[in-house]
Each structure stands twice: as structure tokens, then as C-alpha cells.
């Protein structure tokens, strides 16, 4: 295993731990969004403040976006991103393999 591979593996393990540990360490926490925490803060420091604009989509469908649909859109966003990264990385990796083979053949 090369030095880089090792480093990447270690980094990925740390990444998973960073994201995973709170979930197990803080049992019973509701893990709401910090954006919501932000709106609560606004309510605290600026008690009589009313949001003056509703999200366009929520206005069109006349209510809050259903949780499942919201997760669908989030997945869509992740999916588009991962698709592009995977496609390009795939090409790069394969290209390097070909180049290495050609270099070895010469």
C-alpha cells in the first residue's frame, strides 16, 4: 500500500468517526438543523420579528414541503454531484492505468 493510500484511508476513517460518533454519543438528541436553531435565535433576540417571505415552492404547493419529498431533493442534489465526480474520476483512473501500461510497454 502506498503512503497516499494509507493517508487517505486514515483520513476517511476519521471522517466517518467525526460524523458517526455524535449519533451514538448523544443518544436522544433530535439532530435538528442548525438553520432552525438560527431561526430560534432570531425569535429570541428579535421577538416580534415576522419572516416576510415564504419559500416559493412552499407558496406554490400551499404548505411545507413534505419531509420525504425534501429528502428526495437532497438525494437528487447528492446524486447529481456524486454522478459527475464518479464519472470524471472513473475516466481519470482508467486513463492513468492506460498511460502506465503504455509507459511500461516502452
Amino acid at each position, binding site marked *: 500500500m502506498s503512503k*497516499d493510500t494509507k*493517508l*487517505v484511508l486514515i*483520513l*476517511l476513517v*476519521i*471522517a466517518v468517526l*467525526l*460524523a458517526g460518533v*455524535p*449519533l451514538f*454519543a*448523544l443518544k436522544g*438528541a*433530535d*439532530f*435538528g*438543523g*442548525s*438553520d*432552525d*436553531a*438560527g431561526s430560534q*435565535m*432570531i425569535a*429570541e*433576540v*428579535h421577538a*416580534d*420579528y415576522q419572516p*416576510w*417571505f415564504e*419559500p*416559493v*415552492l*412552499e407558496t406554490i404547493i400551499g404548505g*411545507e*414541503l413534505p419531509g420525504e419529498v*425534501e429528502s428526495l*431533493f*437532497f*438525494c*437528487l*442534489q*447528492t446524486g*447529481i*454531484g*456524486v*454522478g*459527475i*465526480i464518479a464519472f*470524471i*474520476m472513473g*475516466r*481519470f*483512473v482508467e*486513463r*492513468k492505468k492506460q498511460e502506465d501500461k503504455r509507459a511500461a510497454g516502452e
Partner: protein
Amino acid sequence: MSKRQKRAVKLATVFAAIFAVVPAVNAMHIMEGYLPAGYCIAWGVICLPFLVAGFFSLKKILKENRRAMTILAMSGAFIFVISSLKIPSVTGSCSHMTGTGLGAILFGPGVVGILGIIVLLFQALLLAHGGLTTLGANTFSMAIAGPFLAYGIYKLCLKCKVNRRISIFLAAFLGDIFTYCVTSLQLALAHPAENGGVAISAAKFLGVFAPTQLPLAILEGILTLVIMIALETYAKAELKSIGFYKEVK
């Protein structure tokens, strides 16, 4: 940049400079039923010169070098993925990362502004996350302030001969943190505390965001570094072609 492009950037800068003064003057009136609509517009206008400059720099990069397209697409896609992942944090609430550090390191902060606003639009329109009226403020914190700091940190680290990988990590890490600092400040400016004003309010907002964001910023640093290692291994030619190795002696 051509002469005409330069003029457009200048014009937008002047435009922004004029408007940037306005909220500072109005800030005293916020307490009494101030509609933050003015802030929405002001932040949007402040973003303009950065976006215009970013657009031209993007155009130039793509015109001179078609190979940059793949790396550019990667940077954009990285922001897409990273900013869609809501990660649980130590404070018991979730937040997500920005992913803008990668693009800033590779292409400079201007280009990331354009990439970032695409993501923000997507989230504002489909996810009711962020919003159209706050697009300007969000663009400023996530797609302009954060990347600018990340870019600055990266360049500074290289100048001080810090290890490249550590520089990348630091840039992405601090860029992420800074994004949330700016967000706190933006919120505080529009919603100063009853007693204590903007500073107290900023500290309060920062108190909500910072502990949640800190581990995520570390995570962002790590992920940015991982993808950079992957690019360094498999896409050396592309990185060279966008001048990534130029500053290394």
C-alpha cells in the same frame, strides 16, 4: 481580462460601494420594525462585482483551456455533494458543509462564486433551504467570503512553505468556519440584540453555529484533502494545465 470586462467589473464595484454604505446608515433603525428586505438587496448588490469578475474569470479559464472543464465540473460537483449532506454534530443538531474550499484552491475565489450560486439556487428553489430573498446574503457568506479566505489561507501557507496538504486542509477548514462567522454577522446586523447591539447578537448567533460547525469544518478539510490527493494522483496533467503546480518551487 479585456478592457471591456475590466470596465464592467469596475462599474459593478462602484455600484456595490454605493449600496454598501446604505445599510450601515440604516442600521440604527433596525430595532423598530425594520424590514430586512433592504439587507437582502444590499447583500445581493455587494455580491455583484464578485460574480461579474468570477464570470469573466470562468470564461477566460474555459476559453484558454478546455481541459480545465473536467476539474471545474469536479469542483462544482463537490460543492453539490458536500452541501447536500447534513451531518450530525457534537451539539446534537445537524449542519452541512460548504465544499467551496476545493474550487477556491484550484481556480481562485471568483469562479467559486458562480459555482456556489448554482447550488444555492437549487437549494433555495427546491428545498426551501436558504431562499431567494436571502440569496445575496447566502452567496456572500458561502460563495464569496468563505472561498476568498480559503484562497488567501492557501496562498499564505504556500508562501510560508507549509506542507501543501496541510495548507489544503487549513484552507478548507478555515473557509468553512469563516462562512458561518459571516452568516452570524449578517444575521446580527439585521437582528441586533435589544441591549448590546450587533456585537452581542453576533456572539449569540456564533454561539449557535460555531460548536456545531467546528467538527464539520474539520470534516470538510479532510474531504477536500482526500479529493485533492485523488486529483494529484490521477489528474496531474489537468492540475498542471490550470497552473496548480506553478507556485511550487
